[in-house]
């Protein structure tokens, strides 16, 4: 009887520790930084293509992606303090977002290099992927409202298909990344 109670308490402590670490991971500044950087990249591209910025979009995006990844690497430099043991839930959450970051970066860089990006498929593809990431994160980090962010990304995906071939896809995408990537990151840090 007492053994069962002790097992139940230890399971509760492990689950709560997991949730706490997952919460701390979700609350990190990565979403804000990446959302603002990519939003700026899309706005910059729009400014380039409308002649308001004397730059080519390629180098602009190279700078955006380099800045984002440098921020990611610098934040995760090994510290002097011993690292706390990581639980599978936290590892899953981190790997989910790292995998998505690598997938979208590779797709964008290779697509741009091969000249496929002009076909207009990347924006809805990326929106769909990010929707799936938020949907999974809602469960992993015990933040159910992130499912609504996922739904908003999927609505954005449909709208991006609809805006296919229209230059307005660029400011629209900028708004998506600022509102639906930097926005949730900001809410997680600032909510009462």
């Amino acid at each position, binding site marked *: 009887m007492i053994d069962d109670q002790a097992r139940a308490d230890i399971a509760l402590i492990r689950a709560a520790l997991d949730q*706490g*670490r997952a*919460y701390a991971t979700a609350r990190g500044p990565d979403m804000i930084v990446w959302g603002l950087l990519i939003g700026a990249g899309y706005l910059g591209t729009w400014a380039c293509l409308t002649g308001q910025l004397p730059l080519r979009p390629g180098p602009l995006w190279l700078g955006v992606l380099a800045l984002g990844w440098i921020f990611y690497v610098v934040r995760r430099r090994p510290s002097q303090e011993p690292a706390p043991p990581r639980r599978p839930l936290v590892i899953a959450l981190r790997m989910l977002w790292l995998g998505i970051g690598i997938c979208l970066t590779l797709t964008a860089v290779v697509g741009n290099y091969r000249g496929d990006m002009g076909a207009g498929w990347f924006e809805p593809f990326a929106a769909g992927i990010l929707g799936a990431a938020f949907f999974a994160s809602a469960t992993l980090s*015990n933040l159910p409202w992130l499912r609504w962010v996922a739904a908003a990304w999927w609505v954005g995906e449909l709208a991006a298909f609809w805006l296919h071939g229209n230059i307005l896809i660029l400011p629209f995408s900028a708004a998506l990344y600022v509102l639906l990537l930097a926005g949730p990151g900001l809410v997680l840090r*600032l909510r009462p």
Partner: protein
Amino acid sequence: MTDFDHGAIDELLSSRVRLAMVAFLAGAGEADFAAIRDATKTTDGNAGVHLRKLEDAGYVTVSKQFVARRPQSLYRLTDRGREALLTYVAHLEALLPPKESQS
């Protein structure tokens, strides 16, 4: 029957809600009120009462600030709270068969 020392168990952590709050904060480092309430699946009032008890016992500290004109309460586990959690876990593990408590 297991030889069990009831007096050694921390009364404050005998509540599952408070135990979950302390463990959540041990993992999170720092968390706002809403996150703790959601993680422990309690109401605003219930979470407030339990957090106040932990604060009075010196297990958590709270810092209040205004963000975008709205009050935000950030909770942190103190060294005393962390020590209490570790002691509580040690007591629980002592109740289990040796092999199981190491898993």
